[in-house]
């Protein structure tokens, strides 16, 4: 929870309030819930007269330290009608709020003002809180709302390629993001090469993205934390929500438990590409030369239940189960099945000891696996990998007085790395190989958010971490610090420092997140990755508080970065360590961000100027990468501009748009070719000769998306509502480069190579889509 103050308000207070009361502050604490009983994290609770306010935490709890006396307290949250309550504070007191869903115009006004002031006053830098309501309004590819793609529209966050939801934060690679869903780690938050994320927008309550100044309770990844909290079900009524889209449908059901003491929500979605492809296959059943189109689909299932045991105790359970399935049966008798997916479970107990001390105890389980099975008659071939975590953590928050918020706790994780599994069986042979490791990761932390004066606030802490796998043991001390100094009530200077260790590594030889990427522990020759980041900047509330302008400069340097030697054998290799190359990386840049969250037109403008480099010196009998010279990784982008606008036309119609411009990403193109005849058979083959890695940059990327959300007439009899969402992805049909390859043109008569030409492949042209959403 964050506090803010207003010099003028305090002066007024000094004149009006008896000194005896002024000297004494009391705690006002409670929870903010929606009318359905679900907790509202990120809601604002404020006393406008004093210029004081706080945001609710992940469980919807807030706490305000107020002088004794009468106050009007306002609770607000995007999408809900604000509620005012008068309170006469003579002792520590509890005050809960229940907000009902409001019109969007109101929600934008209230949410905007509170959020921007809160961002101005917080010591935390490089953080973005994303409301799913915001994400749901924006146009989306195939109409599929995706919170990770909305995060990509924020400064400092790059995507991994056209349409993909992978995140590359401030020069960090895709494995350096810690994805948490209700505190459980998600190792591969993607479906289908990252075209869709695993987060179903129907059940996501909020997303926090940390890019720098990481709070001490987070650790284990170098570059970012994406903390996703799922929605709790309604505590007072049964409800159904869902949607029918171009490629998938989704449904969520929620209901109270035991007269509002708890609730649950179950949500699922599934794509139906396979329904169409099976029809096409069926129509070609008679064609003996027809090769059937493989089946592909994915599905997700989320479950969350909570229960209030006593006034001071609450428990919740949360679970996720999702799979991608891809496979086909060829006419040659060859069966191919490839599936991958995440599962996770969380159980949490929250206990409030007293108004100044509370704790959360959380147990989580995470599992990611992929499996490839090939069969031909009596021959079979199987390949796979997985990672499984058991985690127990305890987090405490203690407010000894009005100036300090102390957080401390610890966590332990038992990892199991199924690095590679291979099984093959045939007429005369049977082979099998498993490469497996265990690992134990622990962390202890303590941090103090110290409001030194009205102008100066500090947030400093320390995290001690350790990792053990076999006889290999590593440890690290991770100091974290952030400071905010308010030059004026509307202008704050900020700075932060964080040191991070990462003990688990993703084995991937591509720029994108693939289902076949493997997680690997720190071992004898694979030391933990480490990074340090400093950042500084300012936040400036302008235009009567309607706009917040933020500027942040950062410099990050990282050691023991991992890449692979050319031709590395990454699958089922018991000596995988030998394929690794170790190097260093650094990234720096400036992010400018202008936000407007108030009025009929809201949105943001972001611009990032950034450099990311990596360097791998000659080692282990290799020449390193690019003979040891620094190079730009594929996710380096010099310029990145985003403009997002949401306009409420009238009660029924919202117009939305987003525009993105980024510099082209570095890629490797062959410069030369050789001809290889081989021993027997075939024709002369052109073999590309690749120079340095990533020495060519693709053309720049830009795209405009447009959207209209049209609210249909409510179903008054059953209290339901629905809307039609039209999205136009890539509205001006820009052929953005996905990749470039060199094509051989052959003479049609002689079939000899005539010339070579570069061909650019784009992934998505203009794609309109319509989604029908309903809720009752």
């Amino acid at each position: 929870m964050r506090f803010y103050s207003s010099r003028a308000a305090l002066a007024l207070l000094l004149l009006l309030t008896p000194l005896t009361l002024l000297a004494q502050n009391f705690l006002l604490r409670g929870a903010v819930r929606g009318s359905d009983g679900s907790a509202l994290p990120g809601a604002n609770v404020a006393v406008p007269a004093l210029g004081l306010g706080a945001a609710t935490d992940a469980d919807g709890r807030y706490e305000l330290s107020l002088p004794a006396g009468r106050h009007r307290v306002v609770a607000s949250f995007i999408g809900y009608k604000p509620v005012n309550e008068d309170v006469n504070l003579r002792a520590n007191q509890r005050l809960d709020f229940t907000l009902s869903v409001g019109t969007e115009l109101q929600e934008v006004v209230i949410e905007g003002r509170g959020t921007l002031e809160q961002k101005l006053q917080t010591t935390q830098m490089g953080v973005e809180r994303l409301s799913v309501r915001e994400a749901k309004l924006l146009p989306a590819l195939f109409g599929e709302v995706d919170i990770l793609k909305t995060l990509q529209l924020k400064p400092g966050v790059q995507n991994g390629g056209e349409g993909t939801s992978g995140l590359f934060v401030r020069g960090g690679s895709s494995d350096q993001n810690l994805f948490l869903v209700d505190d459980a780690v998600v190792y591969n938050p993607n479906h289908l090469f990252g075209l869709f994320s695993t987060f179903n927008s129907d059940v996501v309550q909020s997303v926090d993205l940390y890019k720098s100044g990481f709070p001490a309770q987070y650790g284990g990844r170098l570059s970012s934390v994406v903390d996703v909290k799922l929605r709790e079900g309604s505590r007072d009524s049964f409800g159904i929500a869902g949607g029918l889209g171009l490629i998938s449908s989704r449904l969520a059901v929620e209901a109270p438990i035991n007269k509002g003491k708890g609730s649950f929500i179950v949500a699922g979605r599934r794509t139906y590409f396979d329904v169409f492809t099976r029809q096409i296959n069926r129509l070609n059943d008679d064609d003996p030369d027809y090769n059937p189109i493989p089946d592909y689909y994915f599905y997700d299932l989320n479950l969350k239940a909570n229960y209030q045991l006593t006034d001071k105790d609450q428990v919740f359970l949360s679970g996720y189960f999702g799979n991608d399935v891809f496979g086909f049966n060829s006419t040659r008798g060859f069966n191919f099945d490839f599936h991958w997916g995440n599962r996770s479970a969380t159980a949490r107990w929250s206990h409030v000891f007293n108004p100044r001390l509370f704790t959360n105890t959380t147990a989580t389980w995470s599992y990611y696996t992929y499996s490839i099975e090939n069969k031909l008659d009596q021959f079979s071939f199987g390949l796979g990998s997985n990672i499984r975590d058991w985690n127990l953590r305890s987090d405490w928050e203690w407010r000894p007085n009005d100036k300090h918020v102390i957080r401390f706790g610890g966590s332990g994780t038992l990892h199991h790395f199924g690095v590679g599994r291979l099984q093959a069986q045939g007429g005369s042979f049977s082979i099998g190989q498993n490469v497996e490791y265990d690992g134990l990761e622990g962390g202890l932390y303590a941090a103090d958010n110290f409001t030194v004066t009205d102008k100066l606030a500090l947030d400093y802490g320390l995290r001690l971490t350790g990792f053990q796998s076999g006889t290999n043991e590593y440890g690290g001390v991770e100091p974290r610090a952030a400071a905010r100094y308010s030059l004026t009530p509307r202008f704050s200077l900020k700075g932060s420092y964080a040191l991070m260790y990462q003990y688990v590594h993703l084995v991937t030889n591509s720029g994108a997140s693939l289902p076949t990427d493997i997680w690997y522990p720190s071992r004898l020759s694979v030391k933990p990755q480490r990074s340090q980041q400093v950042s500084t900047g300012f936040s400036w509330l302008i235009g009567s508080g309607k706009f917040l302008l933020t500027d942040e400069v950062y410099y990050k340097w990282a050691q023991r970065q991992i890449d692979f030697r050319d031709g590395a054998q990454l699958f089922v290799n018991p000596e995988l360590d030998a394929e690794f190359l170790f190097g260093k990386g650094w990234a720096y840049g400036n992010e400018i961000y202008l936000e407007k969250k108030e009025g009929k037109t809201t949105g943001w403008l972001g611009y990032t100027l950034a450099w990311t480099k990596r360097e791998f010196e000659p080692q282990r009998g290799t020449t390193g990468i690019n003979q040891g010279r620094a190079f730009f990784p594929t996710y380096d982008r010099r310029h990145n501009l985003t403009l997002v606008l949401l306009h409420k036309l009238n009660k029924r119609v919202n117009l939305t748009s987003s525009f993105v411009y980024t510099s082209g990403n570095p890629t490797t193109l062959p410069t030369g070719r050789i001809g290889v005849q081989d021993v027997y058979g075939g024709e002369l083959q052109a073999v590309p000769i690749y120079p340095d890695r990533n020495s060519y940059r693709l053309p720049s990327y830009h795209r405009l998306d447009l959207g209209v959300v049209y609210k249909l007439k409510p179903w008054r009899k059953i209290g339901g509502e629905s809307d039609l969402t039209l999205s136009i992805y890539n509205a001006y049909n820009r052929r953005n480069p996905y990749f470039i390859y060199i094509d051989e043109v052959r003479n049609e008569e002689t079939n000899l190579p005539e010339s070579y030409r570069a061909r650019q492949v784009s992934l998505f042209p203009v794609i309109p889509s319509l989604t029908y959403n309903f809720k009752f």
Partner: protein
Amino acid sequence: MKTDRGFLRMLERMKRILNNPDGRPGARAAQRRLMAWMLALTGLLTGCNLEQNADVDLPVLPAQLVVECYLEAGKIPEMTVTETVPYLSTPTPTILTDVTVTLTSPRGVTETLRFQPGQNPDTRKFFTHRGTRRLSIQPGDTWQLTVTDTKGRRVMGTATMPATVPIDTIEWMFNNRPEPRAMVTVKFQDPPGVGDFYRFQVHNDSISDDPDVEYFPEDRLLDGQLVTLGTSYEFAQNDTLIVSLFHLDQPYYNFLRSINDAQSANGNPFGQPAAVQSTVQGGIGVFAILNYQRRLIIVR
């Protein structure tokens, strides 16, 4: 948005990858299949040609000598010397006339191959240099190749003949479809000790064409076992098949794999571009001594 020939060609290309991604059943092949599916489906859904010509300005690097030389016991040595060329340059046959090639036997006898451009009538392969006598090579023998030109470029390489690995049995069986198709299996005994590399090929009718089946197994997981290699149900009755099993040394295996990877990376956005791992120093290319077993079968 019109559907043109380029788009249809891309779909065909995707279809080929789906059906035979690298000829292997591994994880990389699975990725390529999925990628191909995604591109093909995007094309089908949007009905658009998503390919277009691109203007790229590729740097021109100094030309390197490229050598390709495979020795065989009992045959006259032939080899090809060419140069690297800019990728986008027009293919024009260029023969280097200032190159000297010498071959040194295990006993230290050096023979200079004659500059005699031509085409081998059996293999249909072109060569620029040719020896004068048939070579006597035994498994374990190491030969040396030296290539120099008047510009001062020098390429050197050595190659050792791998041990002979005989084919144990070749079998085939038909499936029960109305038009039955046969699968072929080949068994051989892998020698003890990890580090044996193979190239398995099945040609239909003629070894002058591309093989119908080809892959490159190794004994990392099969050391010392009776290994079975197979095809899918893809051969018709009375097909004449030529089954070849090459035993390779590691440098030659790495070269073959690297050219395969380099070709696969051109057109695969997720493939990591791979440098060609030459078996020679000072240039690019391969110098190897072949040892293979070959059988002809008619499936009926």
